[in-house]
């Protein structure tokens, strides 16, 4: 029997079926769900392979102890670093270096959390399947760095505990330091992380860039020394990196050391550069990802 439409049968038309909705409804809640799912995945991975978590306290000691003994090698028998005190006006070499080290830990967390995890997904063969989910790709990138940043925060808290016996105190202006200086520094690092993710798409082997990039950044921003001791040409490069002012301003707020710039100028520079770095990072990432899709090399490693 032929099938007749409601027009032919003269019957009343049924209510029109709703238009097919898009695969995803992007809302704040859906974005948070994506971030939560990725964080859960990474935490599960950490728990399933617990060695790196178990080694965390040890990793911290391996970071702190060489700094301490290097300071002692240049100190008198009373343990006072005379040369350093003459240069900086403070004999707190260890506290000075630990502050730089804390920012280094976050640099590593963001760089490796974003760009290296992209490479990992390529190797495991899960990048393409993640990429075709209807979640914003930028969110996937940020999500992959969350677990690293959480781990870095845990690491920093352990460092703060471990340094108490050495007489290190961050009591100065800690909250202002975190809110006004640390936050824009972290945002700027994310901007660089997006750029590195773009490089990961095109070069496909990104660990060399990451290692070198984070080391160069730490060296140039004065991880355990004032940047004023750098050779003149290197000092010019150092002063062009916003994170230099982040480390310097944080030290001045925490220990009262002489800053490179007045506080207001430093903060303007830090917040402004954070916005620029994120914007440039996004442009680079989007362009590189588009190029990789056009070449069909997204999943290749």
């Amino acid at each position, binding site marked *: 029997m032929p099938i007749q439409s409601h027009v032919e049968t003269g019957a009343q038309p049924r209510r029109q079926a709703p238009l097919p909705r898009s695969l995803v409804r992007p809302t704040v809640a859906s974005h948070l769900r994506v971030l939560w799912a990725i964080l859960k995945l990474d935490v599960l991975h950490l728990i399933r392979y617990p060695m790196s978590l178990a080694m965390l306290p040890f990793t911290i000691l*391996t970071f702190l102890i*060489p700094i301490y003994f*290097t300071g002692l090698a*240049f*100190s008198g028998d009373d343990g006072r*670093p005379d*040369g350093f005190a003459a240069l900086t006006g403070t004999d707190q070499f260890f506290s000075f270096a630990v502050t730089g080290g804390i920012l280094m830990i976050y640099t590593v967390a963001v760089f490796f959390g974003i760009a290296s995890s992209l490479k990992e997904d390529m190797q495991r063969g899960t990048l393409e399947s993640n990429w075709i989910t209807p979640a914003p790709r930028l969110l996937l990138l940020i999500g992959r760095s969350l677990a690293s940043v959480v781990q870095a925060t845990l690491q920093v808290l352990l460092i703060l505990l471990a340094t108490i016996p050495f007489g290190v105190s961050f009591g100065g202006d800690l909250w202002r330091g975190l809110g006004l200086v640390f936050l824009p520094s972290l945002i700027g690092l994310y901007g660089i992380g997006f750029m590195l993710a773009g490089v990961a798409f095109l*070069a496909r*082997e990104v660990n060399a860039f990451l290692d070198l990039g984070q080391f160069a950044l730490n060296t140039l921003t*004065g991880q355990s020394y004032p940047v004023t001791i750098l050779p003149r040409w290197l000092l010019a490069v150092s002063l062009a990196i916003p994170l230099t002012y982040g480390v310097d301003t944080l030290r001045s707020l925490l220990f009262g050391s002489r800053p490179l710039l007045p506080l207001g100028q430093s903060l303007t520079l830090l917040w402004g550069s954070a916005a620029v770095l994120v914007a440039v990072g996004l442009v680079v990432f989007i362009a590189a990802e588009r190029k990789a899709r056009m070449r069909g090399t997204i999943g290749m490693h």
Partner: protein
Amino acid sequence: MSPAPPTQVEKRSHGALPSPAPIGQQGLRAELRVILAAVRKEWIHFVRYPTWAISFLLWPIVFPLGSIFAAWALSGPDGSGLAHFAARTGTTDSAAYVVIGNAIWMWVNMVLWNVGTYLRAEQMRGTLESSWLAPTRRFYILLGSSLAQALSSLLFLVVTAIEVRLVFGTRLWQNPLPLMAVLLLSIPCIYGLGIAFASLVMRFKEAGGLVNAVRGIVMIFVGVSHPITVLPQWMQGVSKVIPFTYTIEGLRRATLTRAGWDQMGDVLWPLALSGVILAALGWACFQWMERRSFQQGGISHY
């Protein structure tokens, strides 16, 4: 039904079946071919990802810079800090002192990452099973990877020496024979450790934490950027059982104080002994891991 006619082989051997030939040929030449095949495969991987050039050209100078600048800051504008350092180490060349320690640390680090994670990386790529099914001793595959890594490390050390000369003006090869002796005796120590490490990584399936642990021990105890005399007594005791302490001390003596053979004995003997022990340890760990993987079926476990 009449029996099947004899095959050509049976005819040639007067009816007796030949004993089955092994799938792979045995012997020194075959083993060398396996090692060279592994070297060739690593080499292809090495040149396929050209970012290695960045590592080799920039790392030797970028990595120690942080410690060198810290040493300059600690020296002070009046040189008072440097005087304390010279009293403890016998040299005022703090940059070369730091570079030597850092170069050896980097060597150990590269071996831990490249040789140490070789089997695990093959496992993650899904190629370990097919490699292990090849009719050869599996140890030679890892040995080939170690050899490829040794060649790239040699290149790294040469680049380090050239760059230190260009940037800081220090000639690291001014006492070449004792220097070569220290480096040669360090090879079995470093690669024995790398092979043992590769076996442990297969057991724990997680390289990052283990690498951090081993290189952390090296960083703390062997005096990468500080003399071990500033360590407490118990830490100095630990330093003396780690072979890389002698590698770094030997290289510093040979280059910074131009020590002769008569002043190198207390460095070379411990290195030779450690080389034998660590090479044997690497072999034993690999055998243990291989047996364990077969018994528990963990070769392809991700």
